[in-house]
C-alpha cells in the first residue's frame, strides 16, 4: 500500500493545477460564483466543459485515439482532487462521459466509437439516459418502450421518464423492447437515439428543489438507424449492466466527492465565522461532533473510491462493489446535508435569495437536492439487494 505519487503523477497534478488557476475566472470561489439562474448556469457550464476539452482536460483516462488523455486511474483520481481544490464548476455532460462513453467503449463497434467518442470528449455532444419509464423504475427490465425493425431502421414508440438533461442533450441512449414475447430480460436492446429526430417530445418535470433537470420524454414513431444499435439485438440488458456499473462506480463517486468536499469546506467556513453566545459555531461541542463525523465520511468516500480504483487496476471486474460505493456516498452525503441544516440553527430555514441566508442559501438547496441520491442510479433498497445477494451470497 502506498499513497505516494510518482514524479510523473506529481507533474500531472501541478500541470493541471496551473491550468485551472489560469482557466477559472479571477476570484473564482471567493467572490465569483456560478450563475443562479438555471438557463444561465447551463450556458456557463457548457462553456466550462468546452474550456476543459480545448485545454486537453477532458476524457482523462480515455484512449488518446478518440481525443482522450490516456491517463491512468491514479491520474483520474488526482484530476478529481484538483477539481475539488479549485472548486471547479460541475460538468453538464457527466452522463456522456461516465455512462454513454464508457458503454460505447466497452460494447460499441469501431464505427460507433469513431462517431461518438470524440464529440463526447470535445463536449460538443451532451447525452441523456433513457432507461426509466413510468412503470419501469427499480424493475428496469420491464421497460415497454418498443423498437420495431423496418429495413435498416428501428421505429421507436413509448415513454421514458426522469430523463435528466434531456432538454440540453443531442443524444440519448435508451433501453427499449425489441422482443415482446421473450422473458423480460431477454427482449431488450440498447439504442443510441438522436434527440433531433422527429417524434421526440420533451416535457420538463419540476423537482423537489424547484429546478427542472429531469423530464418526461415521449417517442412517437421515432426512426433510429440500425447502426445505432449497441451490441446484439435483444442483448441490451447485458449492455445496460455495464452502464450501471459505471453509473455507480468509483469515477462517479470521486466526481461527486469533489462537490461534497467543497460543501464541507463551505460549512467549516461558515461555522468558524458565525458568532454564538460564547464564541463561534465551531467552538460548540455538539456542532463539532456533527462536523467531525461528516468530515470523516466525506473523506471515507474518497478512500472507498480509490480502493476500488486500485482493485480495478489490479484486474478485478467491476461488480457489486459499485453498489457498495453508491450506497455509501448517497447516505453519507445526505447525512452531511442534514448535519449542515441542524448546525445552522435558526438560519437553517433561510434559503437562496434571503439576505440573512448563510452561504447564499446553498446548504438549503443541497439539502433538497440530496434527497435524490438514494433514489437515482438504483435506489438504496435495490443496491442493498444487489450487495446482499451478489456480494454476500444471501438467498433471494
Amino acid at each position, binding site marked *: *500500500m*502506498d*499513497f*505516494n*505519487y510518482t514524479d510523473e*503523477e506529481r507533474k500531472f497534478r501541478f500541470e493541471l493545477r496551473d491550468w485551472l488557476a489560469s482557466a477559472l475566472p479571477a476570484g473564482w470561489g471567493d467572490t465569483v460564483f456560478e450563475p443562479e439562474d438555471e438557463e444561465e448556469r447551463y450556458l456557463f457550464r457548457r462553456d466550462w466543459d468546452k474550456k476543459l476539452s480545448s485545454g486537453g482536460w477532458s476524457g482523462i483516462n480515455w484512449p488518446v485515439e478518440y481525443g482522450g488523455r490516456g491517463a491512468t486511474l*491514479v491520474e483520474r*483520481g488526482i484530476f478529481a482532487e484538483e477539481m475539488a481544490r479549485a472548486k471547479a464548476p460541475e460538468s453538464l455532460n457527466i452522463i456522456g462521459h461516465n455512462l454513454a462513453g464508457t458503454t460505447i467503449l466497452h460494447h460499441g463497434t469501431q464505427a460507433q466509437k469513431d462517431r461518438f467518442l470524440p464529440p463526447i470528449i470535445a463536449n460538443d455532444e451532451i447525452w441523456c439516459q433513457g432507461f426509466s419509464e413510468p412503470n419501469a423504475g427499480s424493475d428496469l427490465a420491464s421497460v415497454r418502450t418498443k423498437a420495431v425493425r423496418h429495413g435498416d431502421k428501428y421505429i421507436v414508440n413509448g415513454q421514458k421518464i426522469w430523463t435528466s438533461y434531456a432538454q440540453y442533450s443531442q443524444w440519448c441512449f435508451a433501453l427499449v423492447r425489441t422482443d415482446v414475447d421473450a422473458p423480460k430480460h431477454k427482449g431488450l436492446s440498447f439504442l443510441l437515439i438522436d434527440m433531433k429526430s422527429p417524434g421526440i417530445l420533451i416535457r420538463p418535470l419540476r423537482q423537489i428543489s424547484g429546478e427542472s433537470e429531469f423530464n418526461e420524454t415521449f417517442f412517437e414513431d421515432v426512426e433510429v438507424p440500425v447502426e445505432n444499435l449497441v451490441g446484439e439485438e435483444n442483448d441490451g440488458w447485458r449492455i445496460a449492466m455495464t452502464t450501471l456499473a459505471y453509473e455507480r462506480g468509483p469515477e462517479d463517486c470521486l466526481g461527486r466527492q469533489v462537490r461534497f468536499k467543497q460543501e464541507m*469546506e463551505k460549512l*467549516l*467556513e461558515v461555522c*468558524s465565522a458565525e458568532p454564538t453566545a460564547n464564541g463561534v459555531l*465551531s467552538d460548540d*461541542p455538539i456542532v*463539532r*461532533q456533527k*462536523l*467531525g*463525523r461528516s*468530515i*470523516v*465520511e466525506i*473523506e*471515507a*468516500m474518497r*478512500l*472507498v473510491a*480509490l*480502493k476500488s*480504483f*486500485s*482493485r480495478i*487496476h*489490479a484486474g478485478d471486474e467491476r461488480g457489486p*462493489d459499485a453498489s*457498495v460505493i453508491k*450506497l*455509501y456516498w448517497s447516505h*453519507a452525503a445526505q447525512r452531511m446535508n442534514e448535519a449542515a441544516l441542524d448546525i445552522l440553527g435558526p438560519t437553517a430555514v433561510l434559503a437562496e435569495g434571503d439576505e440573512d441566508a448563510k452561504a447564499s442559501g446553498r446548504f438549503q438547496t443541497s439539502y433538497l437536492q440530496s434527497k435524490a441520491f438514494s433514489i437515482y442510479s438504483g435506489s438504496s*433498497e435495490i*443496491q*442493498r*439487494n444487489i*450487495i*446482499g*445477494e451478489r*456480494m*454476500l*451470497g*444471501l*438467498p*433471494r
Partner: protein
Amino acid sequence: MNFLFNEEQTSLGETVGQVLADFAALTAPDPSRDSEAEVWGALAELGLFSLLVPEEHDGVGLAFVDLAPSIEALGSGLASPLIASTLVATEAIKRLGSSDQRAKLLPEIAIGETAIAIASAELGRGKDPFFAECRLLDGKLSGKKIAVAGADVAQELLVIARTESAPVLVLVPTDAAGVTITAHSDIDPSAGLCRVVFDNVAVAAGQQLARASIDALDTLVDLGATVHSGMAMGIAEVMLRRSVAFASQREQFGKPIGSFQAIKHRCADLAVAVEAGKATSHYAFWACSENSEDRSGAASAAKAYCGEIGCNACNDAIQVHGGMGFTWELGLHRYLRRAQVIEHAVGSRAWHYDRVVTEALAAREVENAAHRDAA
C-alpha cells in the same frame, strides 16, 4: 499510488489469524486469559514482535503500515490487547526513544521478552487521553491509572504523566517499588484491564522517553488510535461474516431469514460500513507510517469511525441471530465486550471526532494562508 496491501502484508495478516485460530479459548463463550501466555509465545515465535524493530536492533524493520492486516487479525481473533499495545509501544520507542533506550528495549521486545502496557486513562479526566494527573516531580511518579490492558503480565508500563509544566512519557517497570497493579472487575474479563497506582515511584532521567513533548503524545495517541481502529475493523469483519452465515442457514416462515429484506439489508449496510471503515483505517496506517501532514486527523478519523462501526457491527450481529445472539453460549457477547474496550481505549469516539475538527480547521488555516500568499 496503490491502496491495496501487497502479498507479504496480506499473508502476514493471514498467518497471525491462523496462529490465533489454534487457540479456541480466545473466542470461546467463557472469557478467560488461560491461553494468553501461550498465544504470546506462539506469536513471538512467529516473529510478530520483531517486525517493527529496526534491523540494527535485531528486528525485521518493517513499516507500521505493513502490520495493518495483522492488527485486524488480532482484533478478529480477540487477542489480548497487550499484544497490540506492545506493538504500539515498539513503534513509539523506535520513533521517540533515545539511542540507549532503543538499544536496550528493542532487542528484548523483538524476541518477545518485554511486553509493554500503555497507561493513559485516569479517573475524572473526561475523554481526553492527553491529560494526566499523574505527576512526575523530583524524579518521583505518583498517581493512578485505570483500564491499563495487560499491566499485570507486562514487564514495562508506558505512562502518560506530567511534570510541573509539561506532559511526559515515562517507561516504568511493572515490578518497580511503589507500583501496585490490581485487576479491574470489567466488561471484558479477557482484556486484562488493570488499575495501576504509582506511589512515589523512582523514575530516572533515562526512563523518560526522549523528545517527550506534545508532539510525542500526539505520536503515541495517533499510533494507538490507528491500531485500535484496525482491531475494531477486525471485529466488524467477523460480525459481518457470522451474520451472513447465520442468515443463510437459519429458516423461519419456510425460508432462510437472509431472504427477508430487513435482514438482508442490515447485512448489506454492515458490509458497506466495513468497506468504509477499513478504507479509513488503512489510510490512517499509511499516514502514521509516512508521518504525513494529516496523520493526526487520519488517526482520529479512523479511531472514531471504526470504533463506532465495530460496536454497531456487534449490535447488528446479535440482532440477526435473534435469541441465539443473546445467549452466553453463542459467544457473540465476547466481541461486543471487546468492541467496548476498544471504543474507550486511547480516547473515546467523541474526543476523536472533536480532534478531527481541530485538525480540519487548522488545515484550512494553512490553506487560506497559502492562498493569501499566492494572491
